């Protein structure tokens, strides 16, 4: 059963959400899912962009006004 990891990046300044997501993903297995909670408008764009470039499956869900969940499924 693949693991689900939640990463709270609320209130973090750019580029901290991306760096945290990178580190978290490194320690995860293929098939695991990382869910980043983000409220930074730059991060809700650059985290998915980076993750897609790395080849992972990414989705972004708007959770509230100015709050998003970036869902990354580790592919490789």
């Amino acid at each position, binding site marked *: 059963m*693949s693991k689900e990891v939640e990463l709270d990046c609320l209130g973090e300044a750019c*580029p901290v959400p991306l760096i945290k997501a990178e580190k978290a993903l490194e320690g995860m297995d293929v098939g695991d899912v990382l869910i980043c909670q983000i409220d930074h*408008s*730059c991060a809700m764009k*650059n985290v998915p962009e980076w993750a897609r470039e790395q080849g992972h*499956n990414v*989705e972004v*869900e708007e959770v*509230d006004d100015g709050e998003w969940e970036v869902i990354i499924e580790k592919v490789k």
Partner: protein
Amino acid sequence: MGDEQQTAQSEGGIKRSSRTRTRKKKKNQIPLGIIALLFVVAVGIILAMTVGGNVALFWMLGSSFGFILQRSRFCFTASMRDPYLTGSTSLTKAVLIAFAVTTVGFAAIKYGAFIKGLPIPGQSYVVPISLATAVGSFMFGIGMVIAGGCASGTLMRVGEGFGMQMLSLFFFIVGSLLGAAHFGWWKLNFIVRGPKVFLPDVFGWVGAVVLQLLIIALLWIAADKWAKRKSSSSDH
């Protein structure tokens, strides 16, 4: 308090156990947005009628820049920081494109004035190059990355509600005042000996534009290659 564990799928298909933490019901801020727009327009009109057209123009330009910056999540800080920190150069390339487009537009306006014998607009932005330039921009580079935003980025984030950038703005102002207080010292010891170099004076108008666009193109290619190298080297 709604901590239900159920397997769900997010809209695109990644399977996750949707722990429906108490999701606040999303407010619709569009009405507030419309009020904000009316406010911006109203201020512009009032300024034009009271202080003058020039101030109203600056208000319009500023609002436009702020809107564009936020809509595109444009960030000069990231353009300089990400190549090193994350290996990404998408903003670097975008900034280079901005340099190229403005080079063409600015050259056109300046040349048009030049050949008519009129004063060339914007020449006050051609400033002396000295140690102060190097030290100042180096300091700015450090500061903008630490503070999570450059000058335009800080103002943009104040508008987005970031408490951290409101604090940063205050100290930006304080730092500016300190810099202004010391400016005389820098001027006397370094700036006064620094040359102002307007590239068309050195290479001619056509030469300067072509050279600058060429350099921008080469930098764009370098940025493009850098990102490809970085993403392939992190294959595990």
